């Protein structure tokens, strides 16, 4: 890779979502960057790319994917990587991220972020796939911790241990989703503070902040409501450990008016500026 280092970027961003396209283009917003779902812009033309180009003229962009399937045992799809590379070359993003998960196998794509076992065999697969992605994209990957609803028998390491080893072996970076840590901690019964203390802080380039829902006996990562107090509290603790790092409000469903998200982003700024303060 010609660029093996992603410079830190200190800023507060939002996800670029269709209901807000026109406002984002019309207004002068206190937003330091926008994150876009890569696949929504891996298209041939039309409004998505026209909007993306216009937004990119005014704001840095982070590309966030959901379909790389970095944990698939049968490898990555070359056509996907080439389309992503084309988009990255067009956007010149802050970074390209995707999830520590798999989405399908044998040509089937569930379009869901499916859980990986955390064992040596999975580590070998994920490392090989991250290397392949980085070689094609010619840039380091940023990998996000997922929410999960099952864990596998025979797991040999924790999720944060897996991510730490993945960074060491591939040179990738991390996108730390604070909500996902909280959701998985509740679902699997681990201590989220141990998780935050266990990740390599120097590899974290971005933080996601989002809301979740109470399912039957577990939390569900729905991204359809404001960031709740326990996630803000964890974000404060993470901010103390990570120092200044790009943070973003991630809202994917039941999307509120843009001003609501801007107000939430101001909350994030406040918690990051004063990580000793108590969460409301």
């Amino acid at each position, binding site marked *: 890779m010609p660029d093996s280092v992603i410079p830190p970027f200190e800023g507060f961003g939002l996800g670029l979502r269709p209901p807000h396209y026109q406002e984002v283009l019309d207004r002068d917003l206190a937003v330091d960057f926008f994150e876009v779902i890569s*696949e929504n812009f*891996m*298209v*041939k*033309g*039309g*409004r*998505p*790319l*026209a909007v993306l180009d216009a937004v990119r003229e005014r704001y840095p962009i982070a590309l966030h994917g959901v*379909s790389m*399937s970095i*944990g*698939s*045992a*049968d490898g990555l*799809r070359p*056509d*996907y990587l080439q389309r992503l590379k084309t988009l990255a070359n067009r956007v010149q993003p802050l970074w390209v991220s995707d999830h520590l998960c*798999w989405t*399908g*196998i*044998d*040509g*089937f*794509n*569930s*379009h*869901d972020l*499916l859980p*990986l*076992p955390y064992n040596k*065999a*999975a580590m070998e*697969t994920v490392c090989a796939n991250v290397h392949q992605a980085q070689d094609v994209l010619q840039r380091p990957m940023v990998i996000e911790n997922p929410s999960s*609803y*099952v*864990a*596998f*028998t*025979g*797991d040999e390491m924790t999720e944060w241990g897996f991510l730490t080893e993945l960074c060491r072996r591939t040179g990738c970076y991390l996108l730390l989703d604070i909500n996902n840590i909280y959701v998985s901690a509740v*679902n*699997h019964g681990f201590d989220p503070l141990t998780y935050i203390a266990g990740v390599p802080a120097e590899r974290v380039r971005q933080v996601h902040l989002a809301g979740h829902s109470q*399912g*039957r*006996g*577990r939390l*569900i990562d729905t991204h359809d409501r404001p960031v709740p107090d326990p996630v803000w509290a964890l974000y404060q603790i993470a901010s103390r450990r990570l120092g200044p790092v790009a943070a973003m409000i991630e809202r994917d469903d039941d999307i509120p008016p843009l001003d609501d998200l801007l107000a939430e982003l101001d909350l994030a700024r406040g918690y990051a500026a004063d990580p000793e303060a108590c969460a409301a």
Partner: protein
Amino acid sequence: MSLLELQRQFCAHLLDAPSPIAERIAGDSGASGLAVYHHAYRAQLVACLGDTYEKLWAWLGDDAFQAAADRYVAAHPPQSWTLSDYGSAFPEMLAEVYPDDPEVAELARLDWALRRAFDGEDARPIGAADLADVDWETAMFRFTPTLQMFPIRTNCAGIWNALALDQTPPAATCLTEPTALRVWRLGLAPQFSSMDACEYDSLFRLQLGASFSELCAHLGDTLGEAQAALTIGQLLGRWLQDHLLISIV
């Protein structure tokens, strides 16, 4: 067990095939955890179909659309890396499910074509000024890459337009004249327009590689020279106005 085998078992569970994957789940809540993924897989695909086939959904109503979507999802596991490819065969399935209501599949086909046009390839249209130096004897037409067309038997276009305006749609009826729809993108906005059999046949021939002079000869044979000249002028004017033409070489 290898990672590959574990992932195959997990997918089998998602797809309702026999799978021992529950034995690989730690803790005592494995079944309910797996159920979250089982539900999310279907819910997301049904939501995707609802987003793509918005007017069809409004026409069928919630229960009938949900039943059709469930049936489609069960029979069509996604293959593509992008959800925007999902649902391409929904119109064909609906034609089988609703053999006596052809407007259902036609509405679906229109929804699908408009979605394809939405993020299809960009192209710069030509205008009347670009026709000055055309050698009409050898001229070949190239149309915007988002152009799609298909014959219709019903008033699906009127139904679609009423639904788009939140108006009460007309009852489905069969058309009395051969008609087709063309779908394309004008600037950034997907469009559609009805065509008579002559325009459809002419566009079809040109897209298959017929030259302008070959089309003129065909129209002359079928319409007579005078009517053919009038018709070709009207068609050319309409295609230029609608930004369908991107080059004449």
